[in-house]
């Protein structure tokens, strides 16, 4: 393993470059030529902006992003698409049979720097094939007002149970308790690809991949 060599040896020659000042010549001193030049630059923009209004065609927020002219978009009629890595409102994934993937291991609530996740673990009811094998969250609450959208919960989840790929930003509500998202609401959100299913749906009791170990029937 390479070790850090930091800081390194100072540069032999610090390439200092003095800044250039505007000359104090008559042109600058007499205000007017520069004022007209500046107004010219502003007017160019003014006409570029009005041209689009006159034509009645507003720029596309994605395609015309680097074009001159208006860059404002009329939200919410027009929306800027969020990039693929955008961290939006959380969601909980499900297994293929529609049940929750979360096993209430508390990794996400531990990793959360804002401590915005509250989980209460519970045992599956008697007779359930998962009883004694894993738990599930009786309560899974995310306080979207405390959340800082750092994405550490997603990184910390060993089950791919929590994700932030809904593509939704936190919406404003009128009271604080509406920001407390409970388990069922989080389960109802779907990913941007429209899916609910986890990427880690392995080792289900009853599945062919399951090692056949439960708490009662272990080695």
């Amino acid at each position, binding site marked *: 393993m390479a070790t*850090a060599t930091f800081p390194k040896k100072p540069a032999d020659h610090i390439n*200092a470059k003095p800044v250039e000042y505007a000359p104090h010549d008559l042109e600058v001193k007499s205000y007017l030529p520069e004022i007209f030049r500046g107004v010219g630059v502003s007017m160019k923009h003014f006409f570029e902006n009005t041209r689009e209004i006159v034509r009645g065609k507003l720029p596309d927020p994605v395609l015309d992003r680097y074009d001159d002219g208006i*860059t404002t978009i009329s939200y919410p009629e027009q929306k800027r698409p969020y990039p693929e*890595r*955008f961290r939006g409102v959380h969601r909980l994934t499900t297994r293929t049979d529609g049940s929750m993937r979360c096993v209430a291991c508390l990794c996400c609530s*531990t990793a959360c*720097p804002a401590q915005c996740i509250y989980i209460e673990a519970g045992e599956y009811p008697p007779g359930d094939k998962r009883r004694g094998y894993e738990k599930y969250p009786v309560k899974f609450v995310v306080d979207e007002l405390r959340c800082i959208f750092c994405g550490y919960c997603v990184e910390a989840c060993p089950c791919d149970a929590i994700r932030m790929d809904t593509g939704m930003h936190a919406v404003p509500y009128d009271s604080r308790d509406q920001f407390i998202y409970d388990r069922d609401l989080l389960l109802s959100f779907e990913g941007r690809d429209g899916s609910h299913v986890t990427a880690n749906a392995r080792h289900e009791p009853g599945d062919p991949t399951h090692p056949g170990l439960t708490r009662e029937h272990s080695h």
Partner: protein
Amino acid sequence: MEPLDVELEEGELELPAEPMHLNMGPSHPAMHGTVRTVVELSGETVVKADVQIGYLHRGFEKMCERGTWAQVFPYVDRLNYVSPMLNNVGWALAVEKMCGIAVPERGQWYRMALGELARIADHLTCTGAIAMELGAFTPFLWWVKAREMIWDVLEEETGARLTHAFGRIGGMASPPTPGFKGLCRATLEKVEQILVEGEKLLLRNRIFIDRLENVGPISAADAIALGWTGPCLRACGVAYDVRKSHPYLKYDEVDFEVPVGTNGDTLDRFLVRLGEIRQSKRIIEQTLDRMPDEGPVSCDDPRVMLPAKSDVYSTIEGTIQHFKLVMEGAKVPAGECYSYTEGGNGELGFYMVSDGSGTPYRVRIRPPCFQIVGGLSKLVEGRLLSDIVPTFGSLNMIGGECDH
């Protein structure tokens, strides 16, 4: 009251010369951040300026002692909230120095590119705000438009516009997106075009120059004595740049200049920042040319890096390692170190003590703004009240890192 018909010598009939106290801030439209300045005025001249900071104090250093070393990344995002990526890189380098970890080539180039993008955004905001506070709103809007484009790139890469939380101990959260280089080049091209247009409005405009030139000058010796670093020190003619004097990442392998001023006045600080935007662009261009397209951005040291998700899902070793790192945090060897990088406003230092556990024992930050704002009263005393605005703007105080 004295009768007015008495013969008076000229100058005797003056108003009582008690100084007037005036509060500027904490929230003042012309103040560059949340800071309160109590000025004592004699007429329009500032006799005494008492700069009171602390309005954004959140106990950053104490908060760091609560969680793991990796959980500090969201906090450093909020130090200098105009260039969070530079803080991310600074903190990552600091912890890596403690652990003795080196990041792969590609990760180092990636950090440099993202960091310099953040530096451009920082300088655009600061210079634009100086102009705006003096009444020139147009360049500010254009430069903020350019900053938006940079933030679009950063959002594309990190998933958040401002609070990236993207650095990790030993690397970055994810590798560059496939379109990173192309998007970066297109953005830089446009940013420079917008920058030039804004400069056309300002740099030869005498009204603007008169407001900045010879306002708030400071000598190099005074600036060094106050502990200034960054663009404000370089404006005094001292070519001290951590990237040159104590290179980290790959800064010793790229070619760039250090813009320096001469008088250390507000105009110098303004021009140095504009010069640095161009140098940052140069650095990013070289970085993009030399950054490999393949390869890891993070080291594979299992002591600090989370295992790959596929390992966590399928092997017990991966799961255990994952749980140990999440629940206890990466163990940093006991000891102490000081690590410093060039932030948006100057030398951003972290002094840290570890007791060998997964939680920092003590973290001390050396924010560049703190020392710089300490010199503000010296700069404005004896000058006009209206000079406070551009002087304070050019120091670019960021409350988040100043009030640590």
